């Protein structure tokens, strides 16, 4: 009976899928469901109590701060995305098409990852003494005579936040783009040249369209990382700027879990919408 049961093609499939399903249920679906449930609960100064009320959402959507902070978060995501894309694409292009020897390619690629051997936080915080009022950047610029007064906006500003983001996350753009570029059949480039396309035309009409899935994967990485971050914003802006992550972490610190959960649900919704839009442009599964 059991043998027959397992011989059933459909049953076998289900059995094989079960472990992953259970893992996903326990560690992905259940926590999210929990967050959604708690977001409708109420909170006092020191406790949370089960309820079904819309207070948390009502406060969230009626506060101008929410819109400003979501706006800020999207701004960081957009600017960081644009910069990491340009830098990431350029680096990947150079690695994929200008470096001929494969050994060299691997060596240079590993070189890109060296900074990632240290902790995220360290890489971020090391910018602080560099950009500070009496930091290396300002001292160098002054000694070169470029500026007379230290530049205040170098640190604790949107500039420093985005700088840190770009520094931290560019590799997440380089890797998938490099990966897709390496799969491009070189004979396509020869064909383009044979047909009289110049470098720019090849880039626009051959390379970019074929690299789209890589770009899209990198984009998803960068956008979700930036939108979910809170610590970079806190350190690099000297606590003077806020994004959604900081809003949530403040709430948690003040024991306002339901309110934090509601914000998290809205953030999750926002990120999912952004990704849904992105996926409209490229069907990643088809192009992989």
């Amino acid at each position, binding site marked *: 009976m059991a043998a027959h049961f397992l011989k059933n093609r459909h049953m076998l499939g289900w059995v094989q899928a079960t472990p992953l399903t259970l893992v996903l249920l326990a560690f992905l679906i259940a926590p999210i469901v929990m967050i959604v449930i708690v977001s409708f609960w109420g909170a006092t100064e*020191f406790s949370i109590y089960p309820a079904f009320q819309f207070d948390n959402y009502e406060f969230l959507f009626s506060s101008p701060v929410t819109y*400003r902070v979501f706006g800020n978060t999207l701004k960081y995501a957009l600017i960081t995305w644009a910069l990491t894309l340009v830098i990431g694409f350029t680096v990947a292009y150079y690695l994929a098409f200008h470096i001929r020897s494969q050994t060299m390619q691997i060596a240079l690629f590993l070189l890109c990852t060296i900074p990632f051997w240290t902790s995220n936080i360290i890489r971020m915080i090391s910018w602080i003494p560099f950009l500070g009022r009496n930091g290396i950047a300002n001292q160098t610029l002054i000694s070169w005579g470029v500026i007379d007064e230290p530049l205040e906006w170098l640190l604790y500003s949107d500039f420093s936040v985005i700088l840190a983001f770009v520094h931290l996350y560019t590799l997440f753009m380089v890797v998938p783009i490099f990966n897709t570029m390496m799969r491009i059949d070189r004979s396509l480039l020869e064909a383009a040249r044979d047909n009289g396309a110049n470098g720019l035309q090849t880039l626009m009409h051959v390379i970019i369209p074929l690299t789209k899935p890589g770009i899209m994967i990198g984009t998803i990485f960068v956008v979700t990382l930036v939108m979910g971050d809170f610590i970079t914003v806190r350190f690099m802006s*000297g606590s*003077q700027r806020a994004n959604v992550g900081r809003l949530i972490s403040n709430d948690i610190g003040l024991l306002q879990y339901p309110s934090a959960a509601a914000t998290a649900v809205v953030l999750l919704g926002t990120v999912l919408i952004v990704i849904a839009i992105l996926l409209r442009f490229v069907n990643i599964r088809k192009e992989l």
Partner: protein
Amino acid sequence: MGRNDDDTNKPNKPNKPNKPNKRLPTREDQDMAKPKVGYSRRSLLKAGGAAIAASAFPAPMLWAQDTKNIVLRQFGTGVSNLNDVANKVKEDLGFTLEMTALDSDSVTQRAATQPDSFDIADIEYWICKKVWPTGNLQAMDVSKIKNYDKIVGIFKSGKLTEDSVIAQGTAPHTVGFVPEQGAKTFADEQTNWMTLIPTIYNADTLGIRPDLIGRPIDTWAELLNPEFKGKASILDISSIGIMDMAMVCEAMGEIQYGDKGNMTREEIDKTFAIFTEAKQAGQFRAFWKTFDESVNLMASGEVVIQSMWSPAITAVKSRGIDCVYQPLKEGYRSWGGGIGLSNSLSGMELDAAYEYINWYLSGWVGGYLMRQGYYSAVPETSKEFMSENEWGYWFEGKEATDVITSPTGDKLAEAGAVRDGGSFEERMGSVACWNAVMDENQYMVRKWNEFIAS
């Protein structure tokens, strides 16, 4: 000062992580200890009690074994969670004290939500006001506290001396007593039941860089002086930051508060309006949340005037940078911490906890903390554990006759130096307000979030 140190950089690391499930002694141990019911366990714990125990109690060795097995789990903010204290407890009292240091938000969270994860809570008085109604802490029997009479008046009647005026905010004595064991509201006067045994406290003010400012500073209003545009900072911990803001607004003459420690919505709005305007005009270089951040901001010269904590000033000074904890004419913003007992403590561990409290107040810890610049709840016992020079410098505000060093041996002041702000009476006598939780706390917190996001 509030005693918040982010876990990334507390000055005093806990010696061991907390082990919520490991509760010693076991059931068996407690059963073995049962025969001594009827004796004061406190006296048994003491060396002097051992003789009585030996005659009346058949197996004193067993008792010693029990004491050794007791583990008390204490958690609190970094300031008084010191490894040296745990080591000394082991040495003097025989039982083990496990310390966990957290930032004050996490401390509140833990005391309110995980009562079984600790035996002793080392918290601030304003946290007590928030946490007490949960019923997670038990009141302490004052008659078991030996040095109760010697505890400074601030924690009992609220008055340092007969004629002092009680400052605004959550003054420790207002949340220091409950009418009876199990009560969830506070008593108006001293009773036999204490919520927290005061351990350390201090008066906070603004820290400045005199070398970069170059002129005397004597009022809180200077924090928003446009002269320091882009060079000021305030701490990003709402419950403490709001008090500093109130001190500033009042000093500027912009707002007259009914009670800074319990503002109305209107007062909160006005306060934030003033600070939001200043923030948008670029007054602040940054806000800080952890001890190290405040030290770095000051030491690097990014900031020349900011709200600061006493040990942070010491840390800046120890780098050879001129930094002053500036006394201001409006007075200090003060804070106090104490230890409370978990509601789940009972039997032998409860006795051990009382023993620990009595030991805490008996002077060694007080001396240790006073040599860091804090004050002990029972100064006269601490005096015995300090040199005359140290006592004169830290407590009496006298000129140091010799080099002043910290308990860990770092040099803090040269001979001839005088403590910023002077003597104990001068400093604690001019407290303008205490760290507080207001009735409108949730509203204030939302406004604080807006302020940060603005």
